[in-house]
């Protein structure tokens, strides 16, 4: 029970690492920095494992809650520094610590030749600390702390090469864009407190449990809260319309993209929605919005991903769309599925990024896929691992992505809040996903080398980079097998593991029938049909077909007839340019928000308010006082008798005053 009672250790370790590296690491040898950075994360990973061991021994039916000290106490607004653990947390903890451990190891190799080595590791550790805070937090405010903290670290790491203008800009963009969402999040927290007189998850949920479900038409506080919180999620998890920062965030080092912008931070939104599921379940409208946003984003960014030429940009857009899937899952009530996808996605997308990083490393900094090709032989490890990840994300049966995505789509089609159009969007998105992913693979590894081989000599990455790749590959291959039995009508272990969390605050009975996780729903269906049929149906389901189609198209366009792609482009030029320019969203935002804002802040705030009003007042005051001083100082004539006269004048005045007062009395 040690770790369970001392949860803070898990947080403290990375923080300690960050502090050590950040404050002292400047003059340390690389090995010391490594051992601190990686060691701290590894230790907290071990702590998590121990935590799980202990967690399995206790009655895990409800939230395990640990209060450490009272942090804020204003009136009856009290916030404790309290941590809580349940199955959902455990999953997140595992993902976060595991992936970040791998990324740390990977970074040793990848960042080997970079300046500010210690800074990088200190940031990474700090990020881990904040992410774990976010995950372990037992109340909204503490969660918000982690929420902002990861934002900060993401900003720092995106702008890690702060000499590069684009990098710093991207950092700012990320920070500001997220901030917009966080604004909603903050208000959501306040509203939640206003409603429940507490920000503590336990109390909120117990109060919610007694509340009425708000119908789609009637918008109550719950809906408002959910929508506001979701706004934060939209910002943080790069959904429409706030996704714009994520592609730019690729300016950061690749490990960062892998850890923060694929595996962990961006999924914080999903985690939050899942964590707040009692509220969402009772606000159908909010649920629908979540689902809608998720689906649309999934499809939309998939389309953008089609034509990206920068290998990391492709991955970025695919991340956006995958996040969309997760939200879709949560939106249609299949939180488990969403989280499941989150986990698998953490594996394969992290892997993809790391592999891409390895490719870039091999191409010594080249990111444009059109200048690659035929790397299959030169960097086999990277190739194989990446291929596995691609299969996974494309949703080829048997691989991790398949199970999770399949569950989401299934929930979208058959779940309680099933909606055909959302399902359709998701489906098409899945097809597009597999298309652009295979396009990426083919462009990168197949065909002839399109780079000049004398200049660039391609080399496989060092061991400490490839090992994480392999580990993650295993993860992304086998990560989904928890759910495998469910194909043949068995139970979905992941589902059942998370079941207590999502079952604890169910909405009243008549809904539960539908709200039951897809697994059981499937079982009911599975009674009359045989397992073989079941398996067949699952393997030939629409998602699979879509995935295979995508694969074939990609093969056709980029292996079989490379020029076909161009012809296709000629055909639908308008659409091409539109998509190629990412629907001009950045330009639109620029025109709609940024330019007016700039104009206002330049002309109104700066030139008028600041220069004219504020400076005017200040200088004016200074001027006035100088003038008056110039006049008044004449009084100091240096003649003591005048001073004496002033004294006497004061005395007379005072006496008159006294007498007056006395007379009045």
């Amino acid at each position, binding site marked *: 029970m040690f770790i369970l009672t001392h949860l803070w250790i898990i947080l403290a370790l990375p923080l300690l690492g960050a502090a050590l590296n950040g404050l002292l690491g400047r003059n340390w040898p690389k090995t010391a920095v490594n051992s601190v950075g990686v060691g701290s994360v590894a230790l907290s990973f071990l702590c998590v494992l121990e935590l799980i061991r202990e967690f399995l021994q206790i009655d895990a039916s409800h939230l395990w809650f640990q209060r450490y000290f009272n942090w804020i106490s204003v009136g009856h607004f009290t916030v404790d520094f309290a941590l809580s653990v349940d199955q959902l947390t455990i999953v997140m903890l595992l993902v976060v610590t595991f992936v970040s451990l791998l990324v740390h190891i990977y970074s040793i190799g990848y960042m080997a030749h970079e300046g500010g080595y210690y800074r990088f590791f200190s940031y990474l550790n700090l990020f881990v600390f904040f992410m774990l805070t976010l995950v372990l937090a037992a109340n909204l405010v503490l969660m918000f702390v982690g929420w902002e903290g990861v934002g900060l670290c993401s900003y720092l790491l995106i702008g890690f090469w702060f000499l590069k203008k684009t990098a710093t800009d991207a950092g700012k963009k990320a920070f500001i864009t997220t901030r917009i969402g966080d604004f909603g999040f903050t208000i959501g927290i306040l509203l939640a407190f206003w409603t429940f007189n507490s920000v503590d998850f336990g109390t909120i949920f117990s109060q919610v449990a007694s509340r009425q479900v708000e119908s789609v038409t009637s918008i109550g506080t719950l809906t408002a809260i959910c929508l506001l919180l979701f706004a934060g999620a939209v910002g943080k998890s790069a959904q429409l319309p706030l996704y714009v920062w994520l592609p730019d965030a690729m300016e950061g080092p690749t490990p960062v993209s892998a850890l923060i912008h694929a595996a962990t931070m961006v999924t914080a939104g999903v985690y939050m929605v899942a964590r707040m599921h009692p509220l969402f379940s009772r606000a159908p409208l909010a649920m629908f919005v979540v689902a809608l946003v998720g689906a649309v984003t999934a499809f939309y960014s998939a389309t953008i991903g089609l034509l990206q030429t920068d290998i990391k940009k492709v991955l970025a857009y695919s991340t956006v769309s995958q996040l969309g899937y997760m939200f879709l899952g949560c939106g249609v009530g299949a939180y488990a599925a969403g989280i499941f996808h989150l986990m698998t996605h953490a594996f394969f997308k992290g892997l993809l990024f790391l592999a891409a990083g390895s490719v870039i490393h091999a191409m010594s900094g080249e990111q444009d896929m059109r200048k690659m090709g035929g790397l299959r032989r030169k960097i086999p490890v990277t190739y194989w691992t990446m291929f596995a990840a691609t299969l996974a994300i494309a949703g080829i049966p048997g691989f991790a992505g398949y199970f999770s995505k399949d569950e989401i789509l299934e929930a979208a089609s058959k779940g309680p809040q099933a909606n055909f159009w959302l399902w359709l969007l998701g489906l098409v998105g899945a097809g597009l996903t597999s298309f652009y992913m295979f396009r990426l693979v083919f462009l990168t590894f197949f065909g002839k080398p399109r780079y000049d081989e004398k200049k660039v000599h391609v080399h496989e990455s060092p061991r400490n980079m490839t090992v994480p790749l392999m580990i993650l590959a295993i993860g992304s291959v086998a990560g989904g097998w928890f759910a495998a039995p469910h194909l043949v009508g068995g139970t979905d272990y992941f589902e059942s593991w998370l079941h207590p969390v999502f079952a604890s605050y169910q909405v009243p009975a008549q809904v539960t029938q539908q709200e039951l996780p897809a697994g059981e729903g499937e079982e009911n269906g599975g009674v009359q049909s045989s397992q073989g049929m079941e398996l067949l149906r699952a393997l030939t389901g629409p998602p699979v077909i879509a995935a295979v189609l995508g694969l074939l198209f990609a093969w056709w366009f980029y292996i079989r007839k490379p020029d076909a792609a161009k012809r296709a482009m000629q055909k639908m030029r308008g659409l091409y340019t539109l998509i190629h320019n990412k629907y001009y969203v950045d330009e639109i935002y620029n025109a709609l928000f940024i330019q007016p804002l700039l104009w206002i802040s330049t002309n109104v705030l700066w030139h008028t308010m600041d220069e004219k009003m504020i400076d005017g007042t200040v200088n004016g005051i200074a001027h006035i006082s100088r003038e008056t001083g110039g006049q008044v*100082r004449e009084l*100091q*004539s*240096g*003649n*003591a*008798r005048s001073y*004496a*006269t002033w004294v*006497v004048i004061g005395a007379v005045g005072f006496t008159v005053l006294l007498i007056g007062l006395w007379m009045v009395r």
Partner: protein
Amino acid sequence: MNVVPISYYLVLSAVLFGMGAIGFIFKRNIITIYMAIELMLNAVNLAFVSFARAHNQLDGLVFVFFVIVVAAAEAAVGLAIVITIANNRRSLNVEDVNLLKF
């Protein structure tokens, strides 16, 4: 009635104080200005004593002591300053000692 009313003393002290104030302004010689200050202090002392007598409390007299002490200290330092001024400026007229101004 065989005893002088206290208010007489008070009036006297007020008058003396006023004259001290007038002298304080009117005189030009630093030393005499000091004397005017001493006069004011004396007037205040008189007021103290008469109040003490009026309320049968000795505290007033104690204050008189303190006033006297302060006056003595002030005279010591002040006269030392006067001597220095006289040595430096060759004049005791307050209005000639006017370097410290705007």
